[in-house]
């Protein structure tokens, strides 16, 4: 009798917790979703109507004018997409490989110079040369102006990611490496066949970092890829659309630029949609790995 009651009681609380959890997370999800819907709605709204009624999920006066301006030259935006996607894929694959290999090598106890090399890598996080030396290095020593490599190379590895990778691979017992060695495997084989498969959660997390970095990259592109290049990363392209519209409206210097009707508010929203669109389409397919990566990573923590 008592036991039954107890079970019912626990069921009651767990139901309550569950109910609370669902409402809370549901509300939270709505909080995340609504702004995006507002962005989407506003991007289709007439500029004058925005001025009158403010932002709305349902466009009161429907127009695609903002998209027309953003897509004024469709080949440019498509080209920008390909550049960004290309940079993201190549950068993520190569960057992951390099970060994983560095992280693994730096924690192997039988690698004698590991501390001094680690020191060189970490030391750069304390001091940086600053913008001008960086610019000179890329432009005048490496001659990478107007070259996609100028965007690709600086983003490949970062000390922070190497530290993450190093501490993760540290949790893999060195005995595995040693036993593989005894069986006659070379260092590279050990890394590719044994270590990499065991670090997938870390790879997923770090890969996401690198990929997001490349997807959102515009600063290096702004510095090193001049407008003479026809196709430049998407974010720079969109950033330019916004800033030039903004500047034309507010600038005293631009006094001889013919004033165009720029639907600035709706255009900002349209560029946001254009920039996030593919990520949203792509995300459901990788979410699986993403969740796994985070949880396992947390346990390792």
């Amino acid at each position: 009798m008592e036991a039954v009651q107890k079970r019912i009681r626990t069921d009651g609380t767990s139901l309550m917790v569950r109910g609370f959890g669902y409402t809370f997370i549901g509300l939270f999800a709505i909080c995340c979703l609504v702004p995006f819907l507002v962005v989407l709605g506003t991007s289709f709204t007439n500029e004058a109507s925005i001025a009158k009624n403010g932002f709305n999920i349902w466009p009161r006066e429907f127009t695609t004018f903002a998209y027309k301006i953003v897509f004024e030259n469709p080949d440019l935006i498509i080209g920008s997409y390909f550049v960004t996607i290309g940079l993201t894929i190549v950068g993520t694959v190569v960057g992951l490989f390099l970060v994983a290999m560095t992280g693994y090598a730096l924690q192997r106890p039988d690698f004698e110079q590991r501390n001094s090399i680690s020191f060189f890598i970490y030391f750069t996080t304390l001091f940086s040369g600053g913008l001008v030396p960086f610019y000179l290095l890329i432009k005048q020593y490496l001659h990478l102006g107007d070259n996609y490599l100028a965007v690709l190379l600086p983003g490949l590895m970062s000390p922070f990611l190497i530290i993450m990778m190093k501490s993760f691979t540290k949790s893999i017992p060195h005995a595995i490496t040693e036993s593989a060695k005894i069986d006659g495997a070379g260092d590279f084989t050990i890394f590719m066949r044994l270590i990499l498969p065991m670090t997938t959660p870390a790879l997923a997390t770090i890969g996401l970092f690198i990929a997001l970095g490349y997807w959102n990259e515009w600063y290096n592109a702004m510095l090193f890829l001049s407008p003479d290049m026809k196709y430049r990363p998407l974010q720079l392209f969109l950033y330019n659309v916004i800033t030039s519209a903004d500047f034309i409206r507010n600038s005293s210097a631009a006094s001889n630029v013919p004033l165009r009707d720029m639907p600035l508010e709706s255009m900002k929203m349209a560029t946001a949609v254009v920039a996030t669109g593919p990520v949203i389409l792509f995300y459901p397919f990788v979410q699986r790995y993403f969740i796994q990566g985070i949880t396992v990573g947390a346990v390792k923590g």
Partner: protein
Amino acid sequence: MGNLKRVSAIVLMLVLVFSLAACGSNNNNKNAANADTSSDTSGNTSSNSDTSGNTNAASDSSVDTSEFETISYVVLGDKPKNGQLEKVMEKVNAIMKEKINAELEFKWVEWADWQTKYNLLLASGEPLDLITIGTDWLDTWGNAQRGAFLPLNDLLEKYAPQTWSEIPQEDWEQSKLKDDIILIPENHYTQWVNHGIYYRGDWAKEFGITEPIKDFDTLGKYFQGVKDKKPDAVPYDVNGGTSTFYNGFATTYTDNIELPISTGYANVFYAKSYDERYTVDSPIFNDDFISFAGLMKDWADKGYWREDVLNYKGDTRAALKAGLSGADSHHTQTYKGLRVEMDKQQPGSELQMFSYSDTRGNLISMPITHGGTSIGAHSKHPERALMAYELIRQDEEIYHLINYGLEGVQYEVKDGKRFRPAGYDEARDGFYTDFWGGRVDKFEIPSDTDWSGIGDVYAKYDQIKKPFPYGKFVFDKTTVDPEMTAISQVIGEQLPAILFGKAGDPAAAVNALRDKLKAAGYDKVKDEIQKQLDAYKTLVEG
């Protein structure tokens, strides 16, 4: 454990040594750079005399153009991507090749983070030829002090003779850093950035305001009229980021004139008046500022602008065009285009401008070095670059091509005005070069997008204008940098609320602002500016 301690001690020491070394080498670099530039300039002048000597020997006075050169010209703006630029440049370069055996190539610094990119280009020592400059918005003097530009003294007369003689000596004086001419000013182009409030002429008439608005009281009447009779419209829809009323107060209530010293949201430091232009003063410490703050509070209480004006981020100019705002503010250059647009979008609105200078004629010209062109210190062929510049500025055909594009495609001229040809499509046919480095009135063709009555406004200004007195004044803020930053911070935090009447009791708010400015180092900065102005006075007046 002991081992760890030792290692960390060594690391710390290393860090110290490195940072010290870094500082030291920085200083060295600076010195070396300075030495470099000085030797550079002397080297340049000597090499200049060399080249002139050579050419003189070769063919008396004509210039050697046997080798084909590409001249780069750095401009600010986004490169047009519709292919029109290439078509126009083909025509330009055909003439360039024929006349000086060179071609011109524009290089663009886009609006995405242009400040960083522009200064990086100059700091990196890339071999640029021509480059757009602006002393008031592109830190030209600072860059010149860092040796970014080539001194042009000996080159101009020979390679750009028309420009050399066209620009009067006093304008060349304003283009000099110490004794070196480092830029060619855009001195023959009329533009006015005189600020003011735009209001609707049709509404003003409806409210019984028949004379043009010339002071804040009448403006208040106009706002009240909008409030009473136009329920859909905000009398003056504005963002808190606009500091126009500060400028308006200084110009209409005081004789103060602005010093070219930026303190963020609004400039704290003004000169006392045009006659006492070397005496530092500040509108904020003027007695009338409290009553002005009171007027602004009164207006805010009456609802002449939004309740959330300080945080509002909406597009207020779009609101004006949609008939939802009774007023807007910016300067005269913007007005001449906006007037035409308003006539189209709100027919009969007859947008008017109350220029702050209308009240008491307190108007200073723009610096002629607001726009201009310099030659990069590392240019490989400065002579040919100057010849190219001379062509842009003095050859009417090239001037029209570069500024307007192709006749029949980008524009047509009828009755002395530029029109868009029938079937013109901005996306397909749009063209511009963002050339602001030497426009001249003599070749300008008025556009139908400019209000035809703007000439009267210019004439009105011309009658009261006083020359810009600070053309060569370069404020060196190294000794007061922290104070300047603190002052900018205080201004950005306190002033917007006062200007839009949201700071509570006006007298208390203004006094609090003054106290905070004093605490931030107002007096120290004022003394420093005064010292430098005194030095500048002796420099200018001898």
